[in-house]
């Protein structure tokens, strides 16, 4: 057990040095060498920043889709000359009735794998919709798979828009990830006041241009909308002249004539054409600019605007005009987003946490080292040396994988320092016992290592299992803890079985005949 071949010694030394070097790259700034320019990432709790968990409110999307579906279903059967009656939406279900003779035809239409009305997903062996019939009352609803597809697609759209909006603000290295099928996680390092981002993400930014009507009758229907000030109201046609989709660009600008901040926009070809036509017909009418169901302003059309560009005024400050332009440029969210979890840490608290963590590490380390030296003398020194190497290798591995270090992660490292000596203690205590019945130092050391092995392995596996469960169940900072704890187990076993054993081996073979060796 105590013998190491030269090759093995060389291998262990090289491996150790490489990890130590990798760990040291955290101290050097801007080095170009590819292996050594890796760094440990600091978690949001250490470097400061904002963590936001957004949930997509899919109800309006589903509502809208069902609305469209009702029209589709009605038209579909009308075309085929199949009478269906009383089609309506109740509680996110479409209901209608039909006569007995049409019953089977309708059922067949919904169950046809090549149906235009009800798309079939061969991959999931499922239709988009499910049809249920009881006594000629039909109920149409999204299937499980249909709902999932719908949610995933709205999540895909939403994450794209969220990314654009955050990129527009220009925070450094945002981390935007999907969570489940209706959530988006946003991590914004270095951002200590997420107020602006929160307000930008909280807006759907659904922009429409619609005429204000006096009469309550309009072929497209009308609705009563409030102005931004929540007081004034106007009746607005449901007919959409142009929407946010038609925008090519939007920018905040100072109107030189009125000295007011406005948002100027330019339209795509289709939008420009429609805008030109509408403004030529609607001279003298009020055109309402509606954002998320509220009227920003409703200027009177004075001229035909054929250039495909225009401006929105609405008593903006420069900031609010900038934000509106940004929202319009990045596009509308498919559905409203709710912030269901927010954690923000200021940079100075992060720095305080780093300092406290480092002090605790230094003190914990110092206490353990002193204790081990007092208890085991020369073997204590070996353990302490191993402990330092262990710590460096641990940092090296975290650096190599560019792991994220969190405050609980630092706690995990400190805990590793306390627990890493366990394996050495188990071995040394065993050797002491063996020496009671064994005069040959080398044999006693050998059996000390061999006999303590099962206990060491079992004991470490239990801690490792706990760390693995934490890794999969925990979030953010806690995950950081499970990483350092788990990696710490491997590095401490490596350093105990290779480095410490090599050193004890060297020492024991030089002091073969010394009494009371340990």
């Amino acid at each position: 057990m105590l013998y190491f071949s030269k090759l093995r010694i060389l291998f262990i030394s090289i491996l150790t040095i490489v990890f130590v070097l990798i760990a040291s790259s955290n101290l050097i700034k801007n080095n170009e060498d590819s292996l050594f320019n890796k760094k440990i990432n600091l978690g949001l709790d250490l470097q400061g920043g904002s963590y936001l968990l957004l949930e997509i409110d899919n109800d309006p999307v589903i509502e809208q889709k069902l609305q469209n579906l009702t029209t589709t279903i009605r038209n579909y059967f009308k075309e085929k000359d199949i009478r269906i009656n009383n089609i309506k939406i109740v509680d996110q279900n479409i209901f209608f009735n039909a006569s007995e003779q049409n019953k089977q035809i309708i059922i067949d239409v919904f169950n046809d794998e090549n149906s235009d009305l009800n798309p079939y997903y061969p991959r999931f062996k499922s239709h988009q919709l499910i049809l249920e019939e009881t006594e000629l009352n039909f109920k149409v609803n999204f299937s499980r798979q249909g709902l999932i597809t719908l949610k995933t697609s709205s999540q895909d759209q939403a994450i794209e828009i969220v990314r654009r909006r955050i990129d527009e603000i220009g925070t450094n290295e945002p981390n935007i990830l999907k969570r489940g099928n209706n959530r988006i996680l946003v991590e914004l390092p270095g951002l200590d006041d997420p107020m602006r981002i929160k307000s930008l993400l909280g807006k759907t930014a659904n922009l429409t241009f619609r005429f204000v009507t006096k009469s309550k009758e309009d072929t497209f229907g009308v609705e009563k909308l409030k102005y931004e000030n929540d007081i004034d109201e106007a009746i607005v046609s449901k007919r959409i002249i142009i929407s946010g989709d038609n925008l090519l660009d939007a920018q905040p600008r100072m109107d030189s004539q009125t000295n007011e901040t406005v948002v100027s926009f330019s339209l795509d070809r289709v939008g420009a054409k429609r805008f030109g036509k509408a403004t030529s017909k609607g001279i003298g009418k009020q055109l309402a600019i509606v954002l998320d169901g509220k009227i920003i302003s409703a200027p009177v059309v004075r001229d035909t605007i054929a250039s495909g560009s225009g401006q929105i005024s609405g008593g903006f400050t420069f900031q609010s005009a900038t934000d509106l332009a940004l929202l319009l440029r990045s596009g509308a969210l498919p559905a409203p987003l709710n912030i269901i979890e927010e954690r923000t840490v200021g940079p100075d608290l992060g720095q305080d946490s780093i300092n406290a963590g480092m002090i605790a590490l230094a003190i914990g380390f110092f206490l353990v080292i002193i204790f081990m030296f007092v208890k085991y003398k020369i073997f204590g020194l070996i353990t302490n040396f191993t402990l330092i190497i262990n710590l460096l290798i641990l940092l090296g591995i975290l650096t190599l994988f560019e792991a994220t270090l969190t405050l609980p992660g630092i706690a995990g490292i400190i805990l590793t320092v306390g627990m890493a000596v366990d394996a050495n203690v188990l071995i040394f205590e065993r050797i002491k016992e063996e020496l009671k019945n064994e005069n040959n130092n080398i044999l006693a050391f050998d059996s000390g290592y061999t006999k303590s092995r099962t206990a060491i392995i079992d004991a470490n596996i239990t801690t490792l299992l706990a760390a693995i469960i934490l890794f999969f169940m925990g979030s953010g900072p806690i995950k950081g803890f499970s990483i350092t704890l788990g990696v710490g187990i491997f590095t401490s076993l490596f350093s105990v079985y290779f480095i410490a054993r090599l050193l004890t081996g060297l020492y024991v073979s030089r002091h073969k005949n010394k009494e009371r060796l340990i």
Partner: protein
Amino acid sequence: MISFNKYYNHFNFISSLLIIISLILLIFKGLNFGIDFKGGTLIELRSSDVKINVSSLRDKFSQMNLGDVSVKKFGNDTDYLIKFENKDKKANIIEEIKMNLDKSFGNNFDFRRVENVGPKVSAELLKSGIIAISLSLAVMLFYIWIRFEWQFSLGAILALFHDVIVTLGVFSLFNLEINLSIIAAVLTIVGYSMNDTVVIFDRVRENLRKYSDIKIYELTNISINETLSRTIITSATTLFALLAIYFFGGEILKGFSLAMILGVVFGTYSSIYIANTVLVRLKVSQKTVLRDDDK
């Protein structure tokens, strides 16, 4: 050699009592869940004006219509921790509070940390925390069962239950806050306590194979004594590390390290006085381990 076995019955009685008291506390008093598990808003404030104190802050916050607000000092004299339910779920509540505070106290506050957990998320976090702890207990049970015999497995799990329940009992008794990091601490306690038990069990098994004429009552005592110095040294170094975190690691890690310190103490105790007594009560003998070797 210390006669640990003389006190097996006494300490079994005390442990049962501790578990019962803890369970009563957990059922009737319950745990003080933080916003992670209850939902709500937390703000860590630092004021630059020494004249501001807890009661003036508390007065101000209670005027803000936030529901049940708790205002506490947090570490430093100038740091405060404010928690409230945010029942109306106002999105821009933080900005309102900021403006309100600036109006009454002047621009003297630094918002060092803000956490806002919605009711849906907190329910999920609680659920996953409970799953994590149950899963870890199940995994440990399974691991010991494949590595040792079932009697050992039962002993180890009883010891684990004891550690987890009594640690939570202490948290309930002193009304200490349970947050995400406490769950991490409890899981680590599970790992640590298991680690400690496994080392002693490993020795018990070895001694069972070695001596056929020593009764388990004696044999556990021998094994505990043989591994005693390791038990003491490892718990000592682990406690050193944890005490360093508790006293110097900052306010945020206080609860975490306290839970771990309690866990290490209970874990060390339970490895000796619960895990082993189960072996004695189940009359484990050489046959138990040899039968397994024949397989």
